[in-house]
C-alpha cells in the first residue's frame, strides 16, 4: 500500500451508507477503488451523471460516458443523467454529502487553494469553487508538503483561494486534521510521525485533540482485499 492509497482508504471511512459523493482528480479518484461493497454509495460527476460505475474495459468504452476528468466511465444500475445546470443545482443546492478534493494549499482557518498558482496562467477553475462552496462536507486529501518541499498546510493561503473557511477535514499522509468553529484540530497522526516532527513541516497553528490517536485505518485489510 502506498501513501496515496493510505489517504484514499482514510477518506473512505468518512463516507456513510447512502451518501452522495463527488470525487476530484488525483488522490480523490483512488477513493472509488476502496468503496466498501456492503454500502450503497452514489458517485456524482459534475458533467451530468449520478451513479458512476467502474472504468469500462476497452471494448465497453462509450465516448458519450465520461467523468469530469474526461476519462471513460460506466453508469451503475439506478444511475441518472442530467444537464449541467441540474448537476450544479445538486452541488450548489447542498445535495452532495461529501466532496473529496486535492489542494495546493490549506490554511488553519479552513481556506483552500486548489485552482491557481500566482505567476502562472489562471485559465481554469472548472467546478472546484462550486463543490467547495456547495457540498455539505469538504474533505481535502493532499500530500503534506509540495514536491519541492514547500509546506502546504499554512497559517494563510498564499495562492488564490477556492473558498473561505469551508474545509471540514484534511487528510495528508502524516496526519488528519478537523476544522471546527474556525479552529484546526490535529486528530490523528501516522505511525511513522511524531508530534514534534509534524510541527516542523506544518506552519499552520493547530490544537492537538485530547483524543489524539494513530491514523485510523479500520478495515484496511478488508478494503485492500478488494483492491
Amino acid at each position, binding site marked *: 500500500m502506498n501513501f496515496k492509497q493510505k489517504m484514499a482508504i482514510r477518506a473512505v471511512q468518512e463516507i456513510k451508507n447512502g451518501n452522495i459523493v463527488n470525487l476530484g482528480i488525483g488522490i480523490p479518484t483512488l477513493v472509488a477503488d476502496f468503496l466498501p461493497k456492503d454500502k450503497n454509495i452514489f458517485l456524482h*460527476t*459534475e*458533467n*451530468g*451523471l449520478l451513479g458512476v460505475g467502474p472504468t469500462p474495459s476497452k471494448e465497453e468504452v*462509450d*465516448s*458519450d*460516458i*465520461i467523468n*469530469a476528468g*474526461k476519462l*471513460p466511465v460506466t*453508469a451503475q444500475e439506478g444511475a441518472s*443523467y*442530467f*444537464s*449541467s*445546470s441540474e*448537476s*450544479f443545482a445538486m*452541488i*450548489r443546492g447542498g445535495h452532495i454529502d461529501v466532496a473529496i478534493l486535492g489542494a495546493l494549499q490549506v490554511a488553519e482557518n479552513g481556506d483552500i487553494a486548489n485552482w*491557481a498558482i500566482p505567476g502562472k*496562467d*489562471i*485559465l*481554469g*477553475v*472548472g*467546478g*472546484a*469553487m*462550486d463543490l467547495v*462552496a*456547495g457540498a455539505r462536507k469538504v474533505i481535502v486529501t493532499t500530500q503534506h508538503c509540495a514536491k519541492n518541499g514547500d509546506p502546504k498546510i499554512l497559517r494563510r493561503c498564499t495562492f*488564490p*483561494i*477556492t*473558498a*473561505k473557511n469551508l474545509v471540514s477535514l484534511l487528510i495528508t499522509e502524516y496526519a488528519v486534521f478537523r476544522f471546527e468553529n474556525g479552529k484546526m484540530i490535529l486528530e490523528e497522526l501516522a505511525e511513522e510521525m511524531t508530534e514534534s516532527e509534524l510541527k516542523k513541516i506544518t506552519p499552520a497553528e493547530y490544537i492537538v485533540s485530547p483524543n489524539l490517536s494513530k491514523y485510523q485505518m479500520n478495515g484496511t485489510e478488508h478494503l485492500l482485499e478488494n483492491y
Partner: protein
Amino acid sequence: MNKIISIKEAISHIKNGNTIAVGGFGLVGCPLRLVEVLGEHPVYGLTVISNNLGEPDGKGLGRILLQNKITKAIGSFFTSNIDAVRYVNEGKLEVELVPQGTLAERLRAGGAGIGGFYTKTSAGTLLAENKESRTINGEEYVLEFALYPDVALIKAKKADRYGNLSFSKTARNFNPDMAKAAKITIVEAEEIVEVGELTPEEIVVPHLFVNYIVKGEKSNEF
C-alpha cells in the same frame, strides 16, 4: 414549419461579432460538424461561450480559435487546450473565467428570463473581485448576470421534425441550458426522426427552444 436545413445554411445565421454558445464538455456533446463548417464560414470577432475551447491540435473549437475567429471566450476551463493558453499570452484572446456551475446557471437564467442571481460560489475569491455581493442568511453571496447568446450550436442524440430533443448519456451537459438561452438555437442531431417517435417523457428539450435542425453523426472522440 421546416426546421431541417443544411449545415451550411444553419451556420450562415452566425454574423460577425456574434456571441455564440457551443455545447460540450471537452469534445463530448460538442456539435463537431457544425463547428467544422463554422471554420469554412467567413465570420470574425466571435465571443464564444463554452465550458472549454476545444482540445489541442485544432480539435473542436480549437480549430476555430486557430483561424483567429474568436476574440473572447467565456468558460470554466481553458488550460486543457495549450493553444488557448498561448493565444491569451499573445494577447490574441480575452478570457472571462467563470466557475462551471455559475456558467451553467448564467445560461439557465438567460433562458428563463432571470436577469441575474446570487450564489455562494466564488465568494471571497479572485473571481468575485469587482462583483456586487451581499449577505443572505449570514452567508456571503456574489451577484452574477444571465448570459444571452445570439446563437447556440448544440448536439442532441435525436431530434424530431418539430425540434423536440433527446440526449445521449453525459453528452447532454450544457446543451439544454444553451438551447434555452440563445436567440437562435441550431441543433446537430445524430438522428432525425418523425414526430411521435420520441415519447413525451423522453423529450428533454421541447421544440419551442429549437429553431433549426441539421443532421450530424455520433462522434467517438472524447
